[in-house]
């Protein structure tokens, strides 16, 4: 877990498990859930190292979302690749937490991320068209 601070707000950057061996992945998965549990700061879940998402990854992602749900904790995703971003949209996970292209983008617009997150929570993100316009605005790579 890395920590990055910007404008006074510290972000915990958690890499999403990407190891090729299943034993390593299990360990990474455990570490990720532990880190999410103990982290007090907002979290960036970073998919940059993931080439694709398997059904186990999506399962883990839902566990991560469940982990932060109900706690006053902000979580954002860094998709890393457009293919991952497509999968986040297809599974509607992008409607539960903001998705960015890079860590730098999150750090450059921390206020924007926070505002989007709070707006999303307030509105329950039931209007999916908002998710689409957000995705299109943010994805420029």
């Amino acid at each position, binding site marked *: 877990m890395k920590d990055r601070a910007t404008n006074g707000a510290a972000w915990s950057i958690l890499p999403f498990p990407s190891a090729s061996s299943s034993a390593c992945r299990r360990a990474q998965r455990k570490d990720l859930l532990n880190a999410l549990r103990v982290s007090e700061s907002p979290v960036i879940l970073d998919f940059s190292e993931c080439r*694709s*998402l*398997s*059904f186990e*990854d*999506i399962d883990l992602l839902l566990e991560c979302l469940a982990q932060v749900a109900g706690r006053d904790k902000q979580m954002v995703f860094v998709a890393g*690749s*457009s*293919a*991952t*971003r*497509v*999968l986040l*949209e*297809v*599974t*509607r996970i992008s*409607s539960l937490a903001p998705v960015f292209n890079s860590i730098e983008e999150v750090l450059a617009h921390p206020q924007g991320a926070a505002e989007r997150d709070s707006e999303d929570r307030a509105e329950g993100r039931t209007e*999916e068209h908002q998710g*689409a316009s957000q995705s*299109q605005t943010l*994805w420029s790579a």
Partner: protein
Amino acid sequence: MELGALVMVPGGDDFTGMREAQPHGLAAFENPRAPYCSRMPILGNDVLQSWMERVRKLGVQSLWLASGAGVGAATNALAEFARQGIERLLVIELKSYAELDLADLLRFHCERRNPVTEAHDAWGQLGVRLLDRPALRATGGKRESCCSPAESAQTPYQFSGYAKRILSARERQELVGDGLTGACAMRPLGTQIREQVWIGEGVKIATSARVIGPTYIGARTIVGAGATIGPFASVERDCVVDCGTTVERSTVLPDTYLAPGLLIRNGLVDGRHLEHLGWGAVADLESAGLGSRIPRRGARREQFSSATTDDRSRGDNAVAWNFASSSNASQPWLQVEL
């Protein structure tokens, strides 16, 4: 003057290889790994068939088909047509849907006395050209193009009617939208059940599912409870859209299963792959457990291969053509009677 016609299908399976396996039909040749093959149905329609119909209206009784690896070989072997006595050859590369009047193209070609006439629209070549015997002879040994730069530079036939390239997922989706809204002559192959909503034969839609026009649902497709199809969606034949999944401004190609609860928006799904039309990214749905290709049943294959001409109009993409017995395995093309 004897007019011949050659249709080249880029990206498809090799027709000549299919001859032994499917002696009476071509419908089962579709390549599941080629998401943008121009033979993939559009609103249930086969673009190849629409071109064949236009060729038939010219009075041509048979044409040659080349596909897959055969396309390159056929391009390099056009001189062979001249040797067979063909005076003039219409070559259609299946990369566009164009509502082209081939008789008018032929008239233009004759008036100009060009050895080669290429049909263009505002965006360039449509992949349709007429070649006279001298131009056919001149193609012998040329590898890249079937006409020289000088021939290409001759006045092209400018087409101002409706045309769309079909090898790009985005333009393909635009054609779907135009077909659904009546902006082109292509009509969805099925029954119109209400305004701008068409369904094929044997479609099953759960009562809690929503179908929002303009939309097309192909034959035998199943739409699960709480699913939403449309607007501007085309779910082709034999698909399953599971419960709660939304398909919007997208195309789902035949024999595709979509898992529950998905949001397919601005995409082209072909079995296990999804291409996002906006981002151009291709995601693997199958490894994520979100979609897959539905294996074809043997019975369905039989049904395709035994389909008759009348069956073509019945909401299926089944096509049955009779191959002329003169087809020669050494040729890179296959002769089809119209």
